[in-house]
């Protein structure tokens, strides 16, 4: 698959997860569906429960949309050492590389 298309497919799956999580979040914590939206780290609006909820939802939407299994609850990812969870854009790139390279 064309990498640009792959990125877009993953991005749409992440946005679906964001929509799902936003339904239960107070307005002030809801995430914008933008690539530069912060997921984890400084500037992020999610608490720990919200973060894990989002990551699990993303895993489920990825499994449904592209059929791939990915584990986003890895300790390195969550501790920000990797930086992949910082933003929607960085996470999309991370997932794309994991599943398609």
């Amino acid at each position, binding site marked *: 698959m064309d990498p640009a298309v792959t990125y877009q497919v993953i991005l749409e799956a992440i946005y679906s997860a964001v929509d*799902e*999580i936003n*339904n*239960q*979040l*107070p307005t002030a914590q809801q995430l914008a569906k933008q690539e530069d939206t912060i997921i984890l780290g400084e500037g992020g609006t999610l608490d720990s*429960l919200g973060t*894990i*909820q989002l990551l*699990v*939802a993303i*895993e*489920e939407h990825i499994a449904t949309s592209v059929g791939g299994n990915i584990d986003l*609850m890895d300790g390195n990812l969550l501790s920000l050492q990797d930086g992949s969870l910082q933003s929607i854009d960085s996470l999309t790139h991370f997932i794309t590389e994991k599943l398609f390279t």
Partner: protein
Amino acid sequence: MIQPESTLRLISDFTIEVFGGYLENDPSPPHCQVSYGSFGQVFQELLTTPAPKATNQDAVVWTLPESVIEPFGRSLYSEETDTSDIIDSVDVFADALLTYSKGVRSLFVPTWVLMPATRGYGLLDWRPGLGLSELLARMNLQLATRLSEAPNIFLLDAQRWLQPAGERATNSKLWLATKVPFGNRVFQEAALDVKAAILGTMGKAKKLVVTDLDGIMWGGVVGETGWAELDLGGHSHRGEAFVAYQQMLKSLTRRGVLLGIVSKNDEVVALEAIDQHPEMILRRSDFAGWRINWGDKAQNLAELIEELNLGTDAVVFIDDEEIQRGRVREALPDVMVVDMPSDPSTYADIVSSLRCFDTPSLSSEDRRRALMAVTERERHVARQEVGSLEKWLAELEITVSAYPFRNVDTERITQLLNKTNQMNLRTRRMTESQLLGWLKDDAHHLWTFRVADRFGDYGLTGLLGFVIKSETAEVTDFILSCRAMGRRVEETMAHLLVDRAYAQGVKEVIADYQPTPRNAPCLRFWMDSGFESTGGHTFRWAKANGYSLPKEVSLVLETT
């Protein structure tokens, strides 16, 4: 700031904030403000929390069976346990819920479920004394039996919430990391059910379904093909789908929901189909009213709603044409409009799954409501034939039987208190427990009124409450169901009020009207009643010779 219609306390042994988020974020009524009990402190919260002061305080107690019923937790890992020990533990939990329920308006308790991955004993799982499924069913049944001791506790079927979520009903990683046992869709469904339940306890369940005919009740256009060629029943799946839809509507009438028709058709042709087609489940006598003509559907619907003395927010509208649904949504925004697909196969399921009819009680009067509506239609026809209101009232031969409070009427009285809007002096809402507590004071008096005429029985439709303070009687409740309004029953109730108050040594009767958006008819009655208006919305009777009984009404005063 919008005042919440429910301040909802969530008590759980798992992370329940996700559920709270759906309850608060969902835009549909009622508006809920959520608070949380401490994680895993279920019994502590149930047994030590003082009674809350808010009249709109509700609660949800959602637990996992293995957490609150310790021996069941061992059963999950195939340990042998004693069923009677488990049922005893259920009783302890039920006792705690019953205690807590005394301090809230309504308490909602989701049933216990087995996680989808729990296969238990496989083919033995329903074997009594062994299987987990059988054991959990016994636990839920015991809980249901015990909780029925309190009229304000409602067991909600949590299994229904798992089904739409499918594979995403649970996620082991989510549970292990956060102690959230269910997927988001489960909590979303639960929130919708709890909200519908709260609306039901507030008296806001829908009361009328208005349906179209062509394409909904039957396939085809009756005006073009005649009734004999309609697609209804027979051996076609579409014909059977329309029959199933009618059966579901019929089922609603047995729960006290009225049916109406709004259809663009020739009335004679359409009614002939309803009367004659052998596969029709619904007949003319099942409908409280109809508007079958070529006029605007929204206008027709508004007229039908007014004829039936209901508010637009009590109505569900079903039509297969998007343009008609859009028209009604635009013209009557409080009417609930159901989106129906073009394929009738799912019509019955769509109606069956509607939450808007959830009510906290179902009395024999409710079950007869559709029949009462039909007799009301006959009265209406007679009224038109007679012409003069006084002559019509006289010919009705109205009898009103007045009873002091009886325990057997508690459920119906509570229903009247919480569901009646138009003829309601103070719109005082009370649970059964609150009503019974109020009645313990000897100065508090409550009378009920059963109304009948030559067409039939209206049932228990009137309620009068008053408090005696020295030589004054203050009316706390003056309530009459809309189906009995305008037949001099209001005046009869006022007669009995003065008569019974004077019998207690009272010298004046005071009725203080509290306005709401819906009870203007009550103010109109009091303004025309002959009671003296003393300023604002207060009405007073102090004449020595009592309040006259209307000549069109026979009053029977029952002492027990």
